[in-house]
């Protein structure tokens, strides 16, 4: 992971007191739940469907370098209950999003499970969040 590519690196302590506590239908074993990074860029695709909604985006670094990121979210059932919809974002939208990054350094993260929704701002408007 290139540190310059991302705006903020935040360490979150205690979230993994119990592995699997931050719940998804398949767990969160592949993600580093002790870290949150913030990405800024453009939505390239928004998959609204089971088993999980997925945001694809081009994230821009300080030097203009673009990296293609994939963010896993909760299933539509849970996002709807939090106030999201299939129209919450679309291709071409400006997006700032927090995510727990993949442990292997791949440009993949998890931004929402049934327990939490990290910060997501689309075209300057924040989407509903949920504290874990």
């Amino acid at each position, binding site marked *: 992971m290139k540190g310059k590519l991302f705006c903020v690196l935040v360490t979150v302590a205690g979230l993994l007191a*119990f*592995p*699997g*506590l931050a*719940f998804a*239908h*398949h*767990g969160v*074993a*592949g*993600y580093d739940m002790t870290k949150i990074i913030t990405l800024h860029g453009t939505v390239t695709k928004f998959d609204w*469907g*089971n*088993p*999980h909604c*997925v945001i694809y985006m081009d994230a821009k670094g300080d030097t203009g370098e673009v990296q293609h990121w*994939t963010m*896993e979210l909760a*299933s*539509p*059932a*849970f996002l*709807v*209950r939090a106030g999201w919809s299939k129209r919450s974002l679309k291709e071409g939208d400006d997006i700032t999003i927090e995510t727990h990054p*993949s*442990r*292997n*350094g*791949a*440009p*993949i993260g998890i931004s929402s499970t*049934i*327990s939490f929704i990290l910060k997501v701002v689309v075209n300057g408007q924040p989407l509903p969040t949920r504290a874990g």
Partner: protein
Amino acid sequence: MRNRIASLIVVLVVALAVASILRAQSASGSTPAKKVGRASARPPDLSGNWEPTATGPESLRRNTWDPDDPYGQHPEQAPMLPWAAEKWKEARPPFGAKQTFDNTNDPVQRYCDPPGVSRIYMYPWEMTFIQTPKTVYILYEFTRVWRSVAMDRDHPSDPDSTWMGDSVGKYEGDTFVIDTVGYNDKTWLDHTGHPHSDALHTIERFRRLDKDTLELSFTVDDPKAYTKSFTGKKLFKLTNSPMQETLCVYSEMQSFQQNVIDKTQTPSGK
């Protein structure tokens, strides 16, 4: 003549009195009621949509029915017989102490197999009951699977082996009791990959603690796989949110596995 009329009046009065007494006895139940089998009292009201509570060992965070290990942090301590322990070691579950994304063999995640009665309660989705005198139906949001619980019979002597088993139920005061046998052995007992045999026998006890809270006491009884039975509890809360479509679709699961999960496992993320 007068004596005859008087006698007749006395007889009529006595007859009316006896009839009145008999009616009163019948209303008070002092005469034996017809045996109606499983349910003669008003059943407890289990209506509404129920979702797991959010925190604690009896919440959606529960991963096993072991009362000593609700989160599944020590799944090896479950009272497994040797063959079951060996089979459990092969499990690569997405939850608990052995959680992994690497080549998981979780049958639900990998193949969209039905989670089974025991495990479906460990998913965070809703359920609802439809109570009729002869059958109670339980509808589960996850995978949109449902069960029918027979209220007017016992188990067949030789039930088929099915994913959800054969369920019979009764009301014990404020508790709805479901007894299920006839399972196949293809599901995981829980989120940590504990196996079970086709001799699995489960007992569910649902009790509405208050208007908004439902308690499930779940007993696992499988002498072919475990040295003793054990019971765990879960709590559910009433919710106004409608049940959504949450199917497990193999093609969607495969696409997600390839596009997201697998990429978290390769060294370069490719």
